[in-house]
């Protein structure tokens, strides 16, 4: 359930200018202290938003990353990648 940490990272990127600058400067170092799994860490550093979405990262929060092109995620690149994601299961 540590995808929570990914969601929180996205929100902190919106709210905390210093954290945002650190993510921009050296993403690997900036996320080093966060309680992420190895897979989550790799996915973030690779900008693999489709995988993060499939793990439960909320798209409203993930899309914040494009505002400052964090993890290399421009809007065109983000959109290209997220479009490959499987839809989460919907239950009535």
């Amino acid at each position, binding site marked *: 359930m540590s995808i929570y940490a990914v969601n929180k990272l996205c929100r902190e990127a919106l709210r905390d200018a210093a954290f945002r600058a650190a993510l921009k400067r050296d993403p690997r170092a900036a996320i080093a202290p966060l309680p992420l799994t190895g897979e989550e860490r790799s996915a973030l550093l690779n900008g693999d938003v489709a995988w993060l979405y499939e793990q439960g990262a*909320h*798209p409203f929060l993930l899309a914040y990353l494009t505002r400052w092109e964090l993890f290399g995620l421009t809007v065109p690149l983000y959109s290209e990648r997220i*479009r490959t994601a499987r839809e989460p299961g919907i239950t009535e």
Partner: protein
Amino acid sequence: MAEIVAAFGVPHTPNFPALVAKQGPDCRTAQLYAQVAALLHDASPDVLVVYTDDHFNTFFLDNFPTFAVGIADQISGPNDQTAMPSYRVAGEASLASHVRARVIAAGFDLSLVQDFDLDHSIMVPLHFLTPDMAIPIVPVFINGLAPPLPSAQRCSALGHAVKDAIEDWPADKRVAVIGSGSFSLEIGGPRIPLGERACTPDPQWAKHVQDHLEHGRIAELIEEATASRLARAGNIGGELLNWIAMLGVVGDRKPIFIAPEIEHGHAYAAWRLN
């Protein structure tokens, strides 16, 4: 006893304040909000009960209520870096406390929120409808964004319970109810087009919702607004639940004003209730 005088539904698109600041009072968005604002002014409410879906700003996923009511004397916003003026608005804590007690007695486990600010989902509608922030509010929060969402039936029942609570609030006040949000909207999800951050994935559903509203077919709307139907309307499609709760005070009345913007997946509407 208090009297419910009107109900309104509007979008809360966060870039609208900046858009209108740039395009001026004659642009379509400004005109639509102005028409609703004029009807709200005509109804001269003393208090606004506002249904809202917080976008992970007032709350976060560590502690995210399905339903909550905000009880405070002063409330600030927006708290999410929306490009718009910052405001302080009075909270009508007396009605909020009364709603909390009555609605819990009616079987709804409303969370209590007392030290909070608000995001664009309330501040954008207030910016356009009551820019002097002179009318106190009672915010009622519904989880419209983090599945599993409450059902449309449950949100409708909440709307009816809030209606009953307002109507036996022992104050000689006029109350209006506002619901805001989109019927079809995807932000950052797999349905966005290449090169975009957001889109309206299901304009047919938005049109269908607008038709139901226009003709007062609220029972049908609630029946059709299943979790999977809302999800197909986009990952922000759950904002319809704010409207469905608001419609608890409307019954099957037809709106006195409704203006769809189908391409944007939302509408502007007003009901007179007295």
